[in-house]
């Protein structure tokens, strides 16, 4: 009891202080340029965007942010956290922008600012290779399906599950990699994740996993995430401009080909996401 109120007091004191402090923070772009480094937060369990290969952090995000760094004339410093810790840390100012990426949704747009999309994020099902019981997305009715905690895929899966005769038995995982391990071990029947992610996993583990086509739900896109406040506006504008330039001169397509084995047509900005 006592500890609870102590914590509450601490929290509210801290937020009050924070509110007064953030009123006179500096322009982030100037600070990034002065330091010569852009700090980027992400998780490392989201192949092919960010993952650990032979101990090295690699992926589309690493390559793409290298290009963004070149455009801005700064080095990139990575901070890796569990996914549900990334957004609190962004707001705490631990880094300037979040790679991720995250699906651009209405709910997230209220709180955060998105860069131009870098890939499609429409959701699909990954199943065990040779599983005859799932041949289309609707077949997941009543089955155990894994999905990442605090992801938009979870929301989409829930929405889709509501439309089925029997709901899917949704299991939430702290990271998608753990859900893939459980799928391989036969603890769950499928994993719901964005098409680029599961296409990559299925390609990496041919004969173990298979993608169930078509994707379901509404078309959606992946973007990087930043803060909406005025301090961050110049930085986010600069990142947007860099990404559009990278897209226009074909570097984006080259990277998509390298990491997804295919290129995506993405709009230059998403103003009104489908959900």
């Amino acid at each position: 009891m006592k500890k609870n109120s102590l914590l509450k007091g601490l929290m509210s004191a801290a937020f009050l202080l924070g509110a007064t402090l953030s009123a006179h923070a500096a322009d982030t772009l100037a600070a990034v340029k002065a330091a010569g480094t852009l700090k980027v937060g992400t998780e490392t369990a989201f192949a092919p965007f960010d993952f650990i290969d032979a101990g090295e952090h690699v992926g589309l995000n690493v390559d793409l942010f290298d290009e963004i760094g070149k455009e801005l004339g700064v080095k990139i410093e990575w901070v890796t956290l569990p996914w549900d810790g990334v957004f609190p840390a962004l707001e705490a100012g631990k880094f300037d922008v979040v790679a991720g990426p995250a699906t651009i949704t209405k709910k997230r747009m209220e709180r955060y600012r998105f860069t131009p999309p870098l890939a499609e994020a429409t959701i699909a099902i990954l199943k065990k290779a040779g599983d005859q019981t799932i041949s289309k997305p609707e077949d997941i009715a009543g089955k155990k399906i894994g999905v990442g905690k605090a992801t938009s895929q979870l929301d989409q899966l829930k929405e889709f599950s509501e439309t089925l005769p029997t709901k899917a038995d949704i299991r939430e995982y702290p990271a998608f990699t753990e859900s893939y391990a459980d799928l391989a071990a036969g603890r769950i029947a499928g994993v719901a994740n964005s098409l680029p992610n599961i296409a990559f996993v299925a390609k990496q583990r041919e004969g173990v996993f298979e993608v169930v086509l078509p994707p379901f739900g509404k078309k959606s896109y992946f973007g990087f995430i930043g803060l909406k406040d005025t301090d961050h506006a110049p930085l986010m504008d600069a990142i947007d401009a860099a990404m559009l330039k990278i897209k226009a001169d074909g570097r984006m397509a080259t990277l998509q080909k390298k990491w997804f084995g295919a290129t995506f047509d993405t709009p230059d900005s998403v103003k009104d996401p489908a959900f």
Partner: protein
Amino acid sequence: MSFKLFELLLQASIYTVTISIVSILIGFAIAILLSGMLLSLRRHLVLPARIFVSFFRGVPLLVQLLLIYNLLPVIGINVPSVVAAVVGLSLCTAAYQAENLRGGFASVPVGLVESAEMVGLTPGQIFRRIKVPTALRLTLPALVNEAILILKASSLVSVVGIVELTRMAQDLAGSTFLPLQLFASAGLIYLVINWIVALAGGLIERSLPGAPR
């Protein structure tokens, strides 16, 4: 599983060991101060120490780490990952070690102190030669226990962005799909580290004055 993967786990365990040992030592220094405060006869010294101990013993380490990492920036203290990890572990272990030390000092037999006074030792000598070695010997097993607990609890610092042994095993399991081999190896590395800690504790225990032969 290739040797390369095992090597990566060993590299990550350097973080585990370094952060843990630094935290245990800092925690011990704070604990000595705290145990003195807890045993003092002045209320204004006892009370803050009590509050400190009950807070850091009563709030889960995971929550403490997240508070230090995400809440301190709000009041203008933006600590890097390593600092957040060491501060979190140090303060947590300080609370436990302080209680251990307090118990140790409180259990120094009264007869021992009285006979020291009889033979004419000064209070300072009594503290240095009688109380400290006796209390340390009584406390040491509990301190070694605490060190081992902290080494294992250090797996939590991945939430503030440190890729230590457990996190490295998770990351590698995610990209190689060899969870069983990787977690078994990580477990083995923890076991060896803690075995060394226990061995060192035993050596120190036997080297203290007045130890049973």
